[in-house]
């Protein structure tokens, strides 16, 4: 009984994994969806956490060290 349950659960997990992978693959192959994901990832909302993280770090650095680096990049 227990063995059957374990096997059943394992089969369910494998099936769910396969379904998820198939869905992801289909989404990747769909050019419209892929382009939309690409554009969404470039939106100001998506970029906000990256910008905020750097601003926080910069403020922390300025608080700790008054020097500023204005060398060419």
């Amino acid at each position, binding site marked *: 009984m227990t063995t059957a349950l374990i096997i059943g659960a394992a089969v369910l997990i494998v099936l769910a994994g396969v379904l998820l992978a198939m869905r992801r693959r289909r989404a990747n192959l769909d050019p419209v969806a*892929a382009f939309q*994901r*690409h*554009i*969404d*990832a*470039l*939106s*100001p909302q*998506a*970029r906000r*956490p*990256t*910008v905020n*993280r*750097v601003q*926080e*770090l*910069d403020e922390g650095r300025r608080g700790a060290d008054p020097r500023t*680096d*204005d*060398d*060419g*990049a």
Partner: protein
Amino acid sequence: MARDLAIDLGTANTLVYMKGRGIVLNEPSVIALNRQTGEVLATGLAAWQMIGRTPGYIVAVRPLRGGAITDFEITERMIRLLLQRVGVSRFTRPKVVICVPSAITEVERRAVTDAARRAGAADANLIEQPMAAAIGADLPIDEPVGNMVIDIGGGTSETAVISLGGIVALEAVRVGSFDIDNAIQNHVRREHGIAIGERTAEEIKKKIGSADPTPDEAQAEVRGRDMMTGLPKTVLLTPEEIRVAIEDVVSSIVASVVRCLAKAPPELSQDFLVRGMYLVGGGGLLRGLKQRIARETQVPVKMSTVPLEAVVLGAGHVIEHYDKLRGMFMGARR
């Protein structure tokens, strides 16, 4: 588990962004080596302070010129040391996105990715600097509008028109702020007969260098070695003569911006008049450059709020959304 990294491998400075953390390293792209043993003695700021001041057995070099690797082995060692400093070991191999000038050749691209992989990266992908700069400068590149970014680095100047997440027009020249330093060095040697080092030339540029007349102009005293007598000598330089000395470099940069504008589709061109162009990169900090470009193109020019970090910030955003934005990598199918 290694945190993935974005690297702005610039001719002048190298910046590293760590996924989930932000910018963790910002140092000059310089390495100091023992000439006899080949051992690395210093990197970054410590090595930069040695330039022109080393005894015979030490050499402080910039392994990149014009945005490209000039010495593969030294660059690889520099990248390896950089990765070690941000916590990468042989057991933690991160994915790495590296910003490079769009004008580099296929061979140069391969040199950068090979150097990164050999230095400890599990996977290395390249992204064009102007695209990364536009993302980092927070331009609305996800919209169907014309965004123009001018990235003036140490060895390259690139202008790009970006719309809907892709580059529409691009113009790049292998001229940057190091060429301005060289022009100042040559001018002081030719007109005043004294030799100065590259760090002194850079200081002159920062102090009195300008691309257009500015209201706060002052003269600068410069010390060097008299070419005739070999003795230390001091001369006074004016902003006007420095402006003349760097004119060729400045006009070459401005001309490339004009060429990029000419390449832009008319629908996007009209956007620039309203939205303006964005200046990023250390070279963009040259006094009067913003005004000079605006005057010659008749398009407003704005300075990015993060001119020095824009490129690595953009690449950092790509590493944060690696799977969604992998189409941006150089050589990837869009």
